[in-house]
């Protein structure tokens, strides 16, 4: 029953996602307030936006409410799950925890703890394993190491955080590895055979895309060498192996080769945009839309739904950003994941 309930609920929620026509309508809104008014009428966002004064709302607040809506919808569906609350079904909470920890590390390393606290989604405080205020009050990474000691991140990060010359990128990679390891351990507890492999594939698809994106950025923006980039790769892959990335990095024009790899079947099946990441995003969006339609497994269904909802929130951020900076709708539309 529970299995069917989460799957059915996930499919029902997916029916409330925004349509292409609605995106087009949003693209032509003239202000953040107009977008907010629109979202007030949408079932997935109405609860979070209901009390909002659209004349006073600003971009950061609107984005924060969109993220909150995604999280609230996830928690609402999770209530239909009768199994272990800290099992693989809590993947989305762990993911937010990972993202926030990475933000904290980056903020502490650059001495801008305020920015971390400023953007921290307060509604997740009760779900994650660290206190955001204590983390934000850490003056340096060594203090952070002490704060994180009682958490699952304490041991894996201790050495890196207490290093006199800490490597932030390596710390980020290690946090991501912690997340993958946690997910795989939970998947092994939950599923066997083909279902086990498929669920792990869900996580590895993101790892492949993240690795490629990191290589591309490190190479194009920082001209980092292959060895340095190799150190930062998450040591998990599905279709894009370490060897293939190495080969690409050692070519005469690695940026072009990497750029081309975004639209190979290894990472993206969609070739809809000149922007490499969009192709990956659209491929993932289509894949998970398909998985949600055919899946009978509750984790698959909920994971797929969350990927679709994340894509939708990304689209809304881009639309709001476009409106804020006065971009023409056609220009913003190029960045939408549909």
């Amino acid at each position, binding site marked *: 029953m529970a299995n069917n309930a989460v799957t059915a609920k996930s499919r029902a929620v997916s029916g409330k996602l925004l349509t292409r026509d609605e995106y087009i309508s949003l693209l032509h809104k003239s202000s953040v307030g107009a977008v907010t008014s629109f979202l007030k009428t949408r079932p997935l966002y109405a609860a979070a936006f209901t009390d909002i004064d659209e004349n006073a709302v600003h971009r950061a607040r609107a984005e924060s409410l969109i993220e909150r809506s995604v999280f609230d919808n996830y928690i609402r569906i999770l209530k239909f799950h009768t199994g272990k609350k800290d099992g693989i079904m809590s993947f989305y909470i762990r993911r937010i925890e990972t993202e926030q920890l990475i933000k904290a590390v980056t903020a502490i390393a650059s001495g801008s703890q305020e920015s971390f*606290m*400023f953007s921290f989604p*307060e*509604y997740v*405080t009760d779900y994650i394993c660290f206190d955001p*205020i204590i983390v934000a*009050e850490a003056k340096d990474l060594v203090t952070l190491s002490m704060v994180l000691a009682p958490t699952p991140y304490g041991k894996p990060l201790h050495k890196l955080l207490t290093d006199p010359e800490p490597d932030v990128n390596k710390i980020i990679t290690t946090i991501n590895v912690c997340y993958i390891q946690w997910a795989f351990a939970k998947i092994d507890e939950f599923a066997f055979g083909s279902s086990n492999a498929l669920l792990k594939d869900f996580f590895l698809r993101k790892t492949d895309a993240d690795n490629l994106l990191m290589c591309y950025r490190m190479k194009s923006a920082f001209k980092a060498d292959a060895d340095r980039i190799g150190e930062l790769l998450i040591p998990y892959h599905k279709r894009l192996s370490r060897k293939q990335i190495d080969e690409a990095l050692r070519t005469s024009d690695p940026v072009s080769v990497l750029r081309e790899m975004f639209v190979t079947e290894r990472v993206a099946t969609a070739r809809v945009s000149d922007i490499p990441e969009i192709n990956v995003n659209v491929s993932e969006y289509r894949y998970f839309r398909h998985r949600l339609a055919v899946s009978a497994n509750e984790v698959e269904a909920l994971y797929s739904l969350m990927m679709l909802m994340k894509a939708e929130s990304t689209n809304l951020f881009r639309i709001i950003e476009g409106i804020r900076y006065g971009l023409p709708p056609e220009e913003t539309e190029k960045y939408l994941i549909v």
Partner: protein
Amino acid sequence: MAIEKVSLAYIEGSLRKVNKTLKKCCESGCFHMNPPPDTSGTELAAKNLKDKGLYERMIKRAKALADNLGVKLDENAPFDEIEYNVGSDFKKYLDELDRQQAGVYEEQVRINSEIRSKSAIYHNLLGFSGFDADFAELLACKYLKPRFGRIPNGSIKKLDFYTEKTFFFYQFEKKENYTWCLYITTTAEANNIDFLFGGLGFERSALPDYLKGSTDEAARKLLSEMDEDLVKLGEADKKLKEIAAREGDKLSKVYAKLVSLNSSYELRANVTVFDNSFHFSGYVPTKDVKRFTEMINSVGDVTVNIRDVTADDKAPVMLKNNWLFRPFEMFVKMYGLPAANGMDPTPLVAITYMLLYGMMFGDLGQGLCIMILGIILTKVTKAGLAPIIARIGVSSSVFGILYGSVFGNEEIIQPFFRLPKIYELFGYTEAPHDVFKASNMFLILALIVGVCLILTTMIVNIIVSLRMGDLESGIFGANGICGFVFYGSLIVGLGGGIALGIELMTPAYIIGLIALPLLLIFFKEPILHALESRGIKPARTGKGSGVIDTGLKEKLAKMQEGKPAEKKSVGMFIIEGFIDLFEICLSYLSNTMSYLRIGGFVLSHAGLMLVFSIIADMFDGAGSVAVLVFGNIFVTGFEGFIVGIQVLRLEFYELFSRFFKGGGIPFKSVSINTKVQV
């Protein structure tokens, strides 16, 4: 099967009489107006009399005034006593009414707006309950900046991180998502702190600078001001109500007259003006021609020319049926109106619907209940289905007597299938105990009814098609003479052999009555071509062969204009012919079998009642009665509804598709109140 005969009326006269003539047309209640002829591309200096919308603005104004005064307008109100006839009269009246109410209404709007604004401030203030300093003093501070507002509950925890910043933070009322709060900072730090709180989702409350005293004092003062405003509002309302009581009735009548005049102006769009005279045409039921002509002639300086409708005219269709059949027109209209030169299938639908429903749902008790329900619904509501329910209730009761079924009980009345002559005819040696034992009899009877209905509709199709000159459908179609001979002969041949033991299927019978009609259907195209080449136009419309005319063929024909006719190879002709023939034979079989459902529903009705009867036997006294009552209500509602749908399906798919030629346009008599009467 009648369609009301109509005549075409051409009306022309002096342009100055056009309004009066149109008014008379509307009053006649029997005039269907034609759109104006297309004179573009001709040398005629004719133009259409456009609707000037003379009264539209005044109608809007009357509506606005009614809204202000709270008067409910009725466009059907009698307006005989309103003496205004020209626009200036109406304008003068509306101006005067506007003058009377304008000042009061504006005062009412202003007070309402003030109350709304004060109410919003009051509700904002309630959030700061407990604030005991003086608003005026705090807001007047030179070096301190107080900010009243609300902050998301989640952001309050974050403030612990900013303890070193220069601000004081006070919390007031906490609600589900927000906490009402005040933060005070210095003028120098105001920008930074405002930015910080803005980022945390703080929303400032609009508190005017005229507020004085603590929250409670300010709130009390606002309440007292709002009370005063409410008194003023009451006075304004009273004045408006007085005006409404004095003028409301007249305003409604003036509005009704304006609507009426405007609607006759809308009809002017159908009038053609030529050489200072007007021309328009329309259809009038032939029986009303004399009365209509007299009415129009009474206008003076106007002539009416009446002529009979020809096949080229696109005459509207008005169905004419007696009281028994009239409710079933609804089903016909649902399917589409018959062509003007076609035939009204309403009587056939009425008879077959009542017959089939009664056969499939025959129960004296339940039928009477349905009939009573239908009569009550007819009296209480205007639902088109209500009189049909009453009629099928009667039919159900009659068949209930035949089946010997009274609320599912088959012991009270002797059913027809227990009569010796009947059951012996169907090969039973003793009387069947119940419906289930007589199931073969019911299925055979269902097939006989089906065959009779199919043959009847074929005859109807032949008559209608030949009347319309459609030889393809009338003679060579699956529902034409050839189809009728083939199907009828096959049924008689097989039925005679099986039921009566008469061997009719001799070689001559098979060749002459079964193979020949099939061959004629197979070779219909070359035969029709040959007839066409000899000057006989077969008027092949494709109608009546189970195809609803959608006009697609005509469009395709237009598209094909100018293109050479497609030549069909002999091989293609044979393949297509065989496929057509196979489809026709298959449809005869499937359509005949479709009627088996009649017998099926007789059995299912008995089965359902048997179930409830068995359950009722499990209880004693009141329990048993309750089960039987519930069972009867359930079966009447559930099965009665399904049978209704199934019969409609038989009507539309098995009967209509054989003969119905649609495409008729409804007769709509123009009306003074813009309401169209069909």
